[in-house]
């Protein structure tokens, strides 16, 4: 190997000149036929062997390399007539407009003045020389300003109807998309042939071309009109053999054959002196084929199709879009050592673990170097082989030879020959570190490290508490798993990405992992002060945890011994932990502001003992900053946080299971009395609505400032109907048992809200589309069941029924109309925010925090002198603050208050 190392300083983009294309070509490609009778590629065809080797075992006739080493070589096609390069139509158009049709000069006044009588100077400040001087001065340092200058030059020059240099009269240039140019002469529209266009572009002097944005050394304007077409190497368009022995060619090859065929026919027609009309038709056809060869999705022309009717995938299509080269192969790619399957829950796993099917564990491997400490284990793995877990799939000998265990006859013998220095690619086993990921990966905790737990079954399993960071549920979600292969990668994953190290999110410095749903219901039911447990019950629920220690004296000694739920929770709290604050249930009639609280809604923890108050969403919920859970993790560490979630949280679930937790129709069924009260309420509010409408019709309605009379009426009605639903909800709330399970879920923040209960028990209320009552559908009415212009609540989407009572068909229609909006919103929002996010990520991905705390770009430009201008890592902050004085005081002396 004697390669000289070179450093890339920059990349120059430009157009290929016809000479360059010929120079880099191994030969002209002329034959439209690809194979001869015995199936060998024809020389001079698009599969000319000189274009590169594609058959294994062959040697390249040009560079002498075998397949895989030969990079492939270009050929070229001499186009009989020039054609426009579709990628540069805009540049050609701008250039034609700005330059003289006669002399090719840029139509800016020369400094010495124009000699042409008809040239109108208009006191135009910008002269050709001046523009050139400015451009020279700013081009390097201020490329964006140079671009603006060029745009200005183009615009000014295009306006001139007389050339200031040769006095020639100019015609307006018209373009017919995608690539036909016309001149608007007195006699009418005259088509400009590519030959004429190219001639005009050729006449433009280099200085003038520079002012039009060209860098003439690398791209002369006329090179945008093709006279020679490069034929890319076969390596980028390999043919494939299908089972039947038939050869199928790449789309690009098809396209090139089309081009050659038309080119030859055009040549033939010209030579035989065919009528101009026929020649021009063929020429147009050539233009079409060359254009679609570059881009087969040009608006205005039909895409070139395969015989089967499938549109061809030509050059632009290979690069563009999600599946294109950039987004599909360079920004992201398929990788080895990864697996994907459906996820399902397992509350018995640690939050740090992931359940991996045995089937997957036998395919994914970790390379482990043989040492005297692990040799026996690895020997057993080799003996077990690829089919018996925990086995191994490959052995790599110290000389680098890789042995595939599938084909080793005597694995025992191979195992015996293992010595330190061998590497065994062994199956995934319990405790291995893997990365686990769910798309769309919107934040860094969409990808976390887990410890493997190999399990039977076909799904990945995860603890329910890790759902929020992944935003995963189990309605068919799939997730990806990656196995780091090097010790460094494994160590980094374990130390930085492990789930327990990401309980606190960098997004807002609160716990993103925490209780939800049943965990909260269970925690509430266990900690509410009316819960007493016998010793056996206490044992049962503690049994699911790893708690080791004394249970202590039961809180109630006589008349019988009972433990309390708070006593159980206190077993898991650090002995110096203090906290006070309100629970989620502290609201409305059950609100408390001090310890003297009859509702158990004020939480007091002193010296690690839960003295008062219940654990609900405010205390242990996920995404609840400054909560008990947050302070516990902040003050006692991630590992303790994991301990709580793996043990205490499991106790909550176990208690809910033991007590039983469900919902019944009764929980949302209101009494007859409440129903008649609701009816009364409806009548009252309908009268109010009617009043508004009468007033409106009489013109006596008082308009809301800044709104029309009609808008005001709608506003009044919406207000009234909103009040109606709220009142109906209050009636239902008074009628229902506030301690029924549905209410428990809503009040503790486990699931659902008071509004949900209102809609289930009392009435759905107004359905809206874009915040307004539903009014579109038939002419002046939503549905034919109503009179035209009926503005009554029921005709405009007010639903009197509840989910419990059921909706009538019309109400059901309105509800569906309102619900549709939400669905459309989410669909639109995700696509828009996804695009925005991708652009932001691409723009910011090179910014990094240096070791000295500065935030810099890769070029060393300073973005921030210290990260975030305050140096605070949000993940380790007190909910964004550097520190929280009140919390520090509480920690130290809180128990004394």
């Amino acid at each position, binding site marked *: 190997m004697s390669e000289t190392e070179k450093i890339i300083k920059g990349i120059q983009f430009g157009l290929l000149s016809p000479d360059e294309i010929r120079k880099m070509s191994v030969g002209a490609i002329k034959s439209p036929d690809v194979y001869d009778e015995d199936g060998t590629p024809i020389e001079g065809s698009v599969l000319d062997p000189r274009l590169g080797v594609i058959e294994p075992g062959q040697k390249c006739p040009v560079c002498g390399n075998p397949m895989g080493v030969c990079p492939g070589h270009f050929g070229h096609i001499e186009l009989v007539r020039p054609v426009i390069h579709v990628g540069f139509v805009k540049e050609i158009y701008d250039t034609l407009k700005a330059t003289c049709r006669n002399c090719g000069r840029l139509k800016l006044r020369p400094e010495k003045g124009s000699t042409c009588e008809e040239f109108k100077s208009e006191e135009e400040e910008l002269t050709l020389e001046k523009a050139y001087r400015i451009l020279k001065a700013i081009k390097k340092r201020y490329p964006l300003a140079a671009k603006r200058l060029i745009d200005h030059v183009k615009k000014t020059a295009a306006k001139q109807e007389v050339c200031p240099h040769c006095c020639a009269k100019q015609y307006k240039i018209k373009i017919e998309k995608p690539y036909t140019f016309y001149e608007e002469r007195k006699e009418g529209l005259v088509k400009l042939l590519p030959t004429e266009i190219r001639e005009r572009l050729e006449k433009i002097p280099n200085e003038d071309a520079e002012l039009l944005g060209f860098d003439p050394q690398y791209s002369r304007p006329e090179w945008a009109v093709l006279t020679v077409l490069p034929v890319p190497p076969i390596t980028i368009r390999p043919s494939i053999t299908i089972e039947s022995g038939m050869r199928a060619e790449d789309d690009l090859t098809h396209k090139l054959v089309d081009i050659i065929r038309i080119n030859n026919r055009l040549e033939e027609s010209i030579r035989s002196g065919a009528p101009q009309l026929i020649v021009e038709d063929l020429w147009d056809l050539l233009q079409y084929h060359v254009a679609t060869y570059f881009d087969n999705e040009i608006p205005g022309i039909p895409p070139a199709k395969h015989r089967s009717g499938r549109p061809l995938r030509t050059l632009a299509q290979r690069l563009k879009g999600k599946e294109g080269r950039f987004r599909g192969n360079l920004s992201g790619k398929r990788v080895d050592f990864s697996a994907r399957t459906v996820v399902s829950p397992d509350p018995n796993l640690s939050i740090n673990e992931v359940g991996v099917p045995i089937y997957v564990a036998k395919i994914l491997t970790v390379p482990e170097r043989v040492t005297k400490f692990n040799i026996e284990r690895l020997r057993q793995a080799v003996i077990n082989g690829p089919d018996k877990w925990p086995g191994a799939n490959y052995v790599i000998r110290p000389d680098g030879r890789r042995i595939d265990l599938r084909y080793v006859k005597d694995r025992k013998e191979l195992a015996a020959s293992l010595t330190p220095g061998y590497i065994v690619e062994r199956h995934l086993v319990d405790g291995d570190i893997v990365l686990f990921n769910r798309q769309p990966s919107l934040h860094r905790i969409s990808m976390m490290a887990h410890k493997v737990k190999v399990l039977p079954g076909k799904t990945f399993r995860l603890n329910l508490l890790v759902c929020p960071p992944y935003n995963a549920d189990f309605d068919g979600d799939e997730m990806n798993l990656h196995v780091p292969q090097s010790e460094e990668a494994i160590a980094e994953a374990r130390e930085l990405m492990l789930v327990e190290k990401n309980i606190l999110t960098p997004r807002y410095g609160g716990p993103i992992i925490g209780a939800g749903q049943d965990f909260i219901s269970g925690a509430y039911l266990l900690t509410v002060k009316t819960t007493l447990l016998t010793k056996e019950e206490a044992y049962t629920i503690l049994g699911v945890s790893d708690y080791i220690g004394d249970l202590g004296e039961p809180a109630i000694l006589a*008349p019988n011994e009972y433990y309390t739920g708070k*006593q159980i929770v206190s077993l898991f709290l650090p002995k110096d932990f203090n906290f006070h604050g309100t629970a989620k249930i502290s609201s409305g009639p*059950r609100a408390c502001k001090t*310890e003297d609280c009859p509702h158990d809604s004020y939480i007091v923890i002193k010296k690690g003992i*839960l003295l008062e108050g219940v654990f609900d969403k405010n205390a242990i919920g996920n995404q609840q900053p400054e909560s008990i859970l947050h302070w516990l993790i902040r003050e006692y560490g991630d590992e303790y946080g994991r301990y709580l979630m793996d043990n205490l949280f499991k106790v909550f679930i176990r208690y809910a299971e033991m007590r039983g937790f469900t919902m019944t129709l009764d929980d949302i069924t209101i009494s007859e009395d409440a129903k008649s009260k609701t009816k009364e309420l409806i009548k009252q509010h309908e009268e109010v609505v009617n009043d508004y409408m009468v007033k409106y019709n009489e013109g006596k309605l008082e308009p809301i400032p800044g709104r029309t009379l009609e808008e005001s009426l709608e506003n009044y009605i919406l207000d009234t109907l909103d009040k109606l639903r709220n009142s109906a909800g209050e009636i239902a709330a008074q009628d229902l048992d506030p301690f029924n399970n549905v209410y428990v879920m809503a009040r503790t923040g486990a699931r659902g809200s008071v509004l949900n209960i209102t809609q289930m028990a009392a009435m759905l209320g107004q359905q809206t589309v874009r915040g307004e009552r539903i009014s579109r559908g038939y002419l002046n009415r939503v549905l034919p069941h109503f009179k035209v212009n009926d503005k009554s609540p029921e005709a405009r989407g007010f639903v009197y029924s509840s989910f419990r009572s059921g909706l009538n068909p019309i109400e059901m229609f309105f509800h569906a109309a309102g619900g549709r909006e939400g669905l459309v919103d989410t669909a639109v929002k995700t696509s828009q925010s996804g695009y925005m996010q991708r652009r932001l990520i691409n723009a910011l991905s090179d910014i990094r925090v240096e070791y000295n705390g500065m935030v810099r770009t890769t070029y060393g430009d300073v973005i921030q002198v210290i990260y975030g201008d305050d140096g605070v890592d949000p993940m380790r902050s007190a909910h964004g603050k550097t520190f929280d004085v009140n919390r520090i005081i509480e920690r130290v002396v809180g128990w004394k208050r």
Partner: protein
Amino acid sequence: MPEIEKECKVISKVPGSLKGLKLLNLDCGDITATVDLVQEIDIFDEGNEVTFVVSRDKPNYTPNDFCAHGYLFYEKKSDDAFVSLISLYGLLVKIVSNSGIISSGILNMMDHVYVCIKKLN
């Protein structure tokens, strides 16, 4: 010696603000006490004469008494009376007195105490 030992009368037993919770109101002369009760430990009736004991040491008790332990964790002066709270790991005992329990030096904040209510007859 118990820190507090009073002869009291059960003035009333009323429903509390949680499901299954009852509040036992005791009149002990210079102090009044409100004790959280739930069904499992509800052995008192209105008019019962009882001894109300708060003690650092474990008092003697029988299955006919109510006896529990917890922590004195709160005391505030409101108007002209002191409100002190003892948490029996959840169930609260609220004591209203003229001079307070912590303030008058009988007990300290977060003292572990036993609370017993024994029927007299």
